[in-house]
């Protein structure tokens, strides 16, 4: 009798264990955006495979993702103002809100407690509790006396619990100190230049840089010395040259920082600009296949992989940093939208939108080692971003 009871308990325990998700980390997981279907795939880079598809995320035509500090949750920012918290372990939506009419991207605070979203309509930044997605603070991007609001781009997190972002219509950079979350302390820099289209922060979190569309040049803010204000760098880098039409805005996020050098897409020129950190001077240019969109450094800084704007977006070029030469031109496929390295750089994942594929390349041999079916893939976001400032 007693033995039978024990057996029953043992069987019940075994069954319960069988129902549980196998314990695992998220360090080799990531999310890939399926832009047209409004869903994301959870991928694993160790076995180079897809684990699940999470539908119901709305309009993801220009979606981006940041991660909770434990790497378990991805916060997906949709074009339609949707903010969705995806659980990579239970493979489901943990929480979803519609927080504006039209948004472009977001950031997570240094302490992981706040998620900020940059909005086009109504223009501004909204800040949410990372656990509950309850609204914590609203920062309208009002820049004119009549109350007009600017679209906000280039939102990043910065050390000392700050968010930094750029006002596209206004030509301003704002630094929001979130130490007291409900009452952000905002420092505003005005008249920085025409049509700043994106911004980035250096991997150490010290320098914020906004790219200008309306002028040849970039704007630099030293976050260690806010009093000094913004400063123009690479002023007039295309002066005297014919500006080529730009069929897609370059992205500065994930910018290529290799040692003391940074590699930036020029706007309206089929070139990468090489900038020396510190002096912030241009120290070279590399002519490339088309208008660069993403220029991303392999984590060791030895290679830069570049994709291009329509109509030359079927190719990825690889630049060898020491020699500053193009060492490979890969015919990847129609409409390459994004690329993302694994944390230690042995693989790069590339989304090929018009061929409904994500291809995985070995970065040493530069050969394709895997191809995954993904519906109209755009951004690829691996969970290692959780630990990196600005991503």
């Amino acid at each position, binding site marked *: 009798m007693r033995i039978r009871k024990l057996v029953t308990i043992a069987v019940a325990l075994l069954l319960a264990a069988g129902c549980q998700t196998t314990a695992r980390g998220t360090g080799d997981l990531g999310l890939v955006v399926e*832009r*047209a279907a409004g869903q994301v795939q959870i991928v694993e880079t160790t076995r180079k495979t897809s684990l699940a598809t999470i539908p119901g995320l709305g*309009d993801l*035509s*220009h979606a981006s993702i940041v991660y909770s500090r434990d790497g378990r949750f991805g916060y997906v920012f949709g*074009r*339609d103002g949707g903010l969705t918290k995806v659980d990579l372990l239970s493979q489901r939506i943990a929480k979803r809100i519609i927080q504006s009419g*039209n948004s*472009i991207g977001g950031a997570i605070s240094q302490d992981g407690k706040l998620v900020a979203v940059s909005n*086009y*309509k109504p223009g501004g930044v909204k800040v949410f509790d990372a656990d509950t997605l309850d609204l914590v603070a609203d920062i309208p991007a009002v820049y004119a006396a009549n109350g007009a609001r600017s*679209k906000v*781009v280039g939102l990043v997190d910065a050390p000392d619990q700050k968010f930094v972002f750029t006002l*596209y219509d206004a030509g301003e950079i704002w630094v929001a100190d979130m130490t007291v979350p409900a009452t952000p302390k905002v420092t505003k820099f005005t008249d920085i230049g025409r*049509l700043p*289209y994106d911004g980035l922060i250096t991997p150490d979190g010290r320098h914020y840089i906004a790219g200008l*569309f*309306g002028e040849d040049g970039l704007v630099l803010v030293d976050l260690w010395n806010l009093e000094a204000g913004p400063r123009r760098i690479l002023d007039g880098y295309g002066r005297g040259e014919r500006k080529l*039409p*730009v*069929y*897609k*805005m370059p992205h500065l996020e994930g910018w290529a920082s290799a040692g003391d050098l940074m590699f930036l897409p020029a706007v309206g020129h089929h070139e990468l600009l090489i900038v020396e950190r510190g002096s912030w001077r241009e120290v070279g240019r590399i002519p490339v296949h088309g208008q660069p969109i993403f220029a991303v450094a392999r984590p060791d800084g030895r290679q830069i992989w570049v994709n291009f704007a*329509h*109509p030359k977006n079927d190719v990825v070029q690889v630049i060898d940093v020491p020699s500053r030469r193009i060492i490979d031109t890969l015919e990847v496929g129609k*409409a390459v939208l994004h690329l993302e390295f694994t944390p230690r750089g042995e693989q790069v994942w590339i989304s090929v*939108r*018009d061929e409904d594929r994500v291809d995985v390349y070995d970065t040493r041999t530069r050969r394709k080692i895997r191809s995954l079916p993904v519906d*109209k893939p755009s951004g690829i976001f691996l969970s290692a971003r959780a630990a990196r400032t600005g991503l």
Partner: protein
Amino acid sequence: MGGRTVRLAVLALGGLVLAAAAGADPTAERQSTLIHRLKHDCGSCHGMTMKGGLGPALLPSALANRSDDVLAAIITDGVPGTPMPPWDFELSQEEAVWLVRRMKRGVDNAN
């Protein structure tokens, strides 16, 4: 002599047929390419559903009061001083007009 006249007439007729074809709607295949471009490439600034992004919204309500030809010219020639580039390298004036009319009806249910 007679043979030459006939040949000229045939050429002229051929020219007329071509001209008529140029004014017609694009082929079904071309239409689907144009809609794909609109959603995915124009969409990178205007939003895949035309609700707007860095560029303005291209929904029927936003376009209703503007002339087809002016809007088509914006597509083919671009707008200097703004990020809107000229697209004449990959679509004709007639195709731009077709696209404008399509946008005015809404592209939500297009492929």
